[in-house]
């Protein structure tokens, strides 16, 4: 992709070169034509002058210098006179430059030969005019023109560059603001003197306001739904719990109650997670404290001891770095709970491994699993469909949300039948 400015300059440059070549060609041709007609005129005026001199009775041999081979007057027989017509011929003569002997120069001459009858004497006159001088002038002019054209097009190019830069400034500012725009903030684009850019800015501002409004409406709706479902869910669960206390139901009924109860419990958890997600989005976890990640990981592993034992999972620790993170305690718990729970939940039936690595500000949780490689695309999205799991998606989106909250990176890798989840921390230095 080419930048707008580069593209403009390229076009202008091409156009300049083409126009410049045509211009130079036309100017050259004009100069040549002018020089030619100038030489012809000079020859004709010399002819008239010579005739006039001959009429006045100036002897023919005195008109031109004797050793002038270029201009000659010869007396001829009368019969040869055919008219007053004259010929102008262009002759080329190559001679050796007297100053530098090696160089051969070709000089173009214009020759006028005419016959005239003055006082019953016939003369043939040959007048020669060298074009060398004119050619030199022509070349000189061409040189000046060329230099001038090059300089002026360069200046134009630079001016164009500056103008373009200046004119596109508001546009670039708009792009920069758009890039930085987050859905929570209003997009504030300044006023410019260019009509089109102003229209663009105001349209963009309207558009983003609309998006913002839609987003917040949607968010509010989700939040309301999550909160509003809490009470009915609690009621449902409580009623089922009371129903379980009855002693008169058949095994079949018991099964139905049990299954309903389990489904309600699942809804509970989902609801809790959704509320947690929206609370993170609403920045309700601002209280931070420094936590030593190494100590924290050790504590967490101890906390999960039972779960590891239950599935005979071997846990390896490779903590090569000692970092302190400034983080909200609730969030770090949610983050690690989800990382470890996924690693346990989707681990193989028995005898799996979990490796926790920490180096170069990157945490890696690696585990064996009964599921194959996960699809990278939409992996960390909230509504990610995965046939083998129903809560993996939401757990991962929680991880992503928390990482986003602290501008950390998350990534996933599948290698040698191992699932690897990475968190790229950006630890702040402790003051």
């Amino acid at each position, binding site marked *: 992709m080419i930048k707008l400015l580069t593209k403009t300059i390229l076009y202008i440059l091409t156009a300049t070169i083409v126009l410049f070549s045509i211009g130079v060609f036309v100017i050259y041709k004009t100069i040549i034509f002018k020089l030619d007609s100038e030489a012809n005129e000079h020859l004709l005026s010399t002819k008239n002058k010579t005739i006039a001199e001959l009429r006045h009775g100036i002897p023919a041999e005195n008109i031109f210098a004797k050793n002038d081979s270029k201009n000659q007057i010869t007396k001829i027989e009368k019969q040869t006179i055919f008219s007053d017509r004259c010929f102008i011929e262009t002759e080329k003569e190559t001679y050796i430059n007297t100053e530098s002997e090696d160089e051969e120069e070709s000089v173009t001459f214009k020759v006028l030969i005419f016959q005239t009858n003055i006082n019953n004497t016939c003369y043939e006159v040959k007048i020669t005019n060298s074009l060398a001088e004119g050619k030199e002038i022509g070349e000189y002019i061409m040189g000046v023109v060329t230099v001038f054209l090059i300089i002026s097009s360069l200046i134009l190019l630079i001016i164009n560059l500056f103008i373009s830069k200046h004119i596109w400034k508001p546009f670039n500012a708009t792009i920069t603001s758009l890039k930085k725009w987050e859905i929570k903030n209003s997009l504030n684009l300044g006023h410019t003197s260019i009509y089109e850019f102003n229209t663009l800015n105001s349209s963009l501002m309207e558009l983003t306001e609309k998006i913002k409004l839609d987003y917040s409406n949607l968010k509010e709706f989700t939040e309301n739904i999550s*909160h509003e479902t*809490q*009470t009915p*869910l*609690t*009621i449902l*669960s*409580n*009623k089922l*719990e*009371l129903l*379980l*206390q009855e002693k008169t139901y058949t095994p079949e009924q*018991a*099964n139905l*109650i*049990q299954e309903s*109860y*389990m489904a309600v*419990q699942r809804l*509970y*958890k989902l*609801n*809790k997670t959704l*509320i*947690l997600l929206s*609370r993170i989005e609403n920045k*309700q976890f601002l*209280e931070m404290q420094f936590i030593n990640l190494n100590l924290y990981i050790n504590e967490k592993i101890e906390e*999960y001891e*039972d*779960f590891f034992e*239950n*599935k005979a999972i071997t846990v390896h620790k490779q903590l090569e770095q000692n970092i302190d993170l400034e983080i909200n*305690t*609730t969030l770090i*718990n*949610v983050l690690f*709970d989800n990382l470890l*729970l996924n690693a*346990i*939940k989707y681990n193989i039936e028995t005898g799996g491994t979990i490796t926790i690595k920490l180096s170069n500000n990157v945490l890696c949780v690696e585990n064996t699993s009964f599921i194959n490689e996960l699809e990278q695309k939409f992996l960390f999205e909230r509504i990610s469909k995965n046939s083998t799991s129903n*809560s993996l998606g939401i757990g991962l989106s929680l991880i992503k949300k928390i990482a986003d909250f602290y501008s950390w990176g998350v990534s996933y890798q599948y290698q040698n039948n191992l699932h690897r989840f990475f968190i790229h921390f950006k630890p702040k230095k402790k003051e």
Partner: protein
Amino acid sequence: MTKPKERRNLTIITNIEKNFADIWKFLGSSKKKSTFNTVKMRILIVEDEINLRQDAGRYLCKNGYECEFSDTLRIGKQKLRDWEFHAALIDIGLPDGSGIELVKYIKAHFPAMGIIIISARNSLDDKIDALKIGADDYLTKPYHLSELSARLYSVIRRRNFGGKNMLIFDGLEINLSDKKAISNGNELKLTKKEYEVLVYLASNPTYLVTKQAIADNIWGEKADMAETFDFVYTQLKNLKKKLVDAGLKNYIKVFYGMGYRFMD
């Protein structure tokens, strides 16, 4: 324990609710053996959602408590003035104000009462705030009734029995202050989790406590795993074995696929 003061203002929230309360009071008192043997514990439930307060009432009444209900701050205060309570369950979000106000009111006028705050918001800060203003415990919606009952049980026992906080069953003694289970004078070697499960079940005697509730009680947020159920099973199997090995009767009855009952 002192007898309840005479009711000066008779406030009936709804007839149905009162009837329910009476029925459950009756059921509760008719049980041969209540949790606290002789003394009836009176609980005030302040919750604006009728279903929630009634269900809590039903569950607790069965467990031998007497319950009074209120759906607003105003009626709650009124009932507090008219009756004597041992503990209160207070929902934070009430139609005419915050439950926090009621907690402060109770702290000022009835310092001996146990208070459990119920909130729809699950946050550590809220929990700390609630405990700071004097609540004994904090419970987030949604909750299991067995959890509510166990918390209430624990609060009341702590307040009323202090250092000699013992649960005594046939041959089994649970010392809640020292966190020990004793069988015929010998301390049972229970893991922390086994002890917690035992106390949880014992504070819901004869009730069916679901596996999910046990898992939530012990592992909290982490209970959201299929594994935890196998796990509950393992824990209870071990616990039962330890109780039987100590020469005790089989207190814990399994209800397949559902949960467990502690049979006194």
